[in-house]
């Protein structure tokens, strides 16, 4: 710290640092715990991890089968027996919320990871090679990016049909341009940096250059985008379900449950709309915090490396 090394030493340090970019971020996270960005990030991580745990252990955690219909009068308010009450069919809302986390995370995981898997390499190639291919790809991706995501997803979901996997695919379509843009822009700026030139001069092949330097550097900014697009993906999936294009009843799904319950809201049955909404909000806010926090942490990092 504080000691400026000769130029070569600095570059070496960058190379070393870049090879463990995720670790770098986590280290910074541990360092910056007390700043707003750090607090936000840790809250986000906490939320995400708890929801992942809920999703995995939905079976042992849930008191009842989420599809079991209790033959007591439906729309029971929260009680000890039904922590979040029951819905309009007399199903235990708490169990449905837990299983709903699984549905949401499944959709989000499929959608966002596929988008990453597609958008990242295309962006990498496009940004690194440049030229006509790059211009065409940018035009296509920007066009898709400019189109209302939910509508595009709705179209895809409409023609693919309902179900977790299909909704995941529909969501993929929206976020491919996002990952493409991020990857390409990062690649473009990292490409200009001396250490890539230096590596090239050392006789590394084009692909080696891409993979060993650019890819890792780009990966630093991916967690930010990932958190934000995951939050957005969950919202989009909920929106699709709300519009009746997402999942088939009686799959436990927050969006679908909310859509089915909202009609009772004005008659005092608040819990069946409240809890699905709250679940969506907690998860998305968690992811949003994580994204915001990471952004504050990663951006200076990128700037520093760029400087």
């Amino acid at each position, binding site marked *: 710290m504080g000691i400026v090394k000769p130029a070569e030493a600095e570059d070496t340090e960058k190379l070393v640092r870049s090879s463990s970019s995720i670790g770098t971020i986590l280290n910074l996270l541990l360092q910056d715990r007390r700043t*707003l960005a750090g607090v*936000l990030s840790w809250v986000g991580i906490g939320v995400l991890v708890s929801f992942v745990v809920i999703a995995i252990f939905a079976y042992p955690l849930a008191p009842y089968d989420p599809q079991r219909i209790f033959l007591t009068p439906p729309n029971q308010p929260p009680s000890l027996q039904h922590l979040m009450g029951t819905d309009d069919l007399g199903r235990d809302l708490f169990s449905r919320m837990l299983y709903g986390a699984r549905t949401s995370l499944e959709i989000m995981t499929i959608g966002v990871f596929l988008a990453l898997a597609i958008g990242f390499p295309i962006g990498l190639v496009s940004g690194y090679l440049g030229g006509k291919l790059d211009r065409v790809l940018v*035009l*296509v991706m*920007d*066009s*898709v*990016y*400019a*189109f*209302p*995501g*939910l*509508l*595009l997803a*709705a*179209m*895809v979901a*409409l*023609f*693919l*049909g309902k179900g977790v996997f299909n909704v995941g695919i529909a969501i993929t*379509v929206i976020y491919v341009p996002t990952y493409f843009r991020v990857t390409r822009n990062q690649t473009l700026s990292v490409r200009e940096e001396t250490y890539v030139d230096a590596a090239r001069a050392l006789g590394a092949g084009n692909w080696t250059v891409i993979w060993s330097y650019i890819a890792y550097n780009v990966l630093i900014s991916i967690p930010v985008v990932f958190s934000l697009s995951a*939050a*957005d993906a969950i*919202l989009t999936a*909920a*929106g699709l379900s*709300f*519009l*009746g*294009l997402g999942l088939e009843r009686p799959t436990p799904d927050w*969006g679908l449950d*909310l*859509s089915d319950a*909202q009609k009772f*809201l*004005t008659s005092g049955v608040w819990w069946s*709309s409240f809890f699905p*909404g709250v679940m*969506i*909000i907690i998860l*998305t*806010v968690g*992811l*949003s*915090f994580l*994204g*915001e926090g990471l952004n504050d942490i990663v951006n200076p990092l990128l700037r520093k490396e760029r400087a």
Partner: protein
Amino acid sequence: MPKQGSLLAYTVSRLILALPTLLVLLTVLFLVLRILPGDPISALEAGRRSTRDIAADKARLGLNLPWWVQYPVYLSQVFSGNFGTSLGQIYLGQPVLQVILQKLPATIELATGAMLVATLVGVGTGIIAGSRRDRPPDIVVRLYGSIIWVIPVFWLGLMLQLVFAVGLHWFPPNLRYEPDPVFFPPPSHLTGLYTLDSLLEGRIDKLAISLAHLALPSLTLGLVLSGFFTRTVRANLLRTINSDYVEAARARGIRERYIVYRYAFRNALIPVVTILGLQFAILFAGAVLTERTFSWDGMGTLLLTSIDSRDYPMIQGTVIVYAIIIVAISVVIDVINGFIDPRVRY
């Protein structure tokens, strides 16, 4: 340098530049609407043996032809505004474009209202946060900014409906206008925008009714959108407040008031205009959900109705019109940007 001439030239050049974007978007939609599902009509009918004769519908819509034949026909249909006639029960036989144009004003009105709310709230909170960095108002606003955009718009709509329409009776709960056309005759149909039509008619009472109905949907959509503005304005303001020209202006002894407005705010708000175009994409997506919550009879509702009645020509037409609007808005935004930012026209 003559300003007017160059702005016109800039506008024209932007229009020309918009063409490839539109073409690409139309091609992407062509893929999604026709190629990916293989056979969209059968996909829509998804397993049911339909009321409608699938083969006949496909022949009628030209969907039985190979894609390289369909594609030019599709483009010529789009550019001539001929989207065919509805196959759904509700608008059966009516020209698709005609139906869409009936619904379009409602969506434009909602979008405008929402954008207004988003801009006012977003810019306001952004300025509060940006000019009080790391102080409590900034932290509150930053939390607002990262929470509000992930609140499901339909959920927010429900809550606002519950509080302001059912609870407090401040605003009507849904629809674009009072459902009783005898007591509350809607404004005559000139533009289809109820607020504008009321003004053109010179009827303040009608304007008030239209605005009251517009309030909750706009607020719902606008608030959700405002988060993005909040964050952008804040970030930009932090950048401009610490910028070199602000420091230089201060060194020249310019009044602090002017520095804040002429230097920091104006420069901070310009990038906001630039990103406005992309916000419309989010806006229209949110509008579909908002329209549903508030029984707002616009394009979103039309799209959902068409999906319900598996009205392929209407679905296709609606989605394409959305695409055209998006591209048109991006051109308008660019031109506005060129008008207010002297650097752009070069």
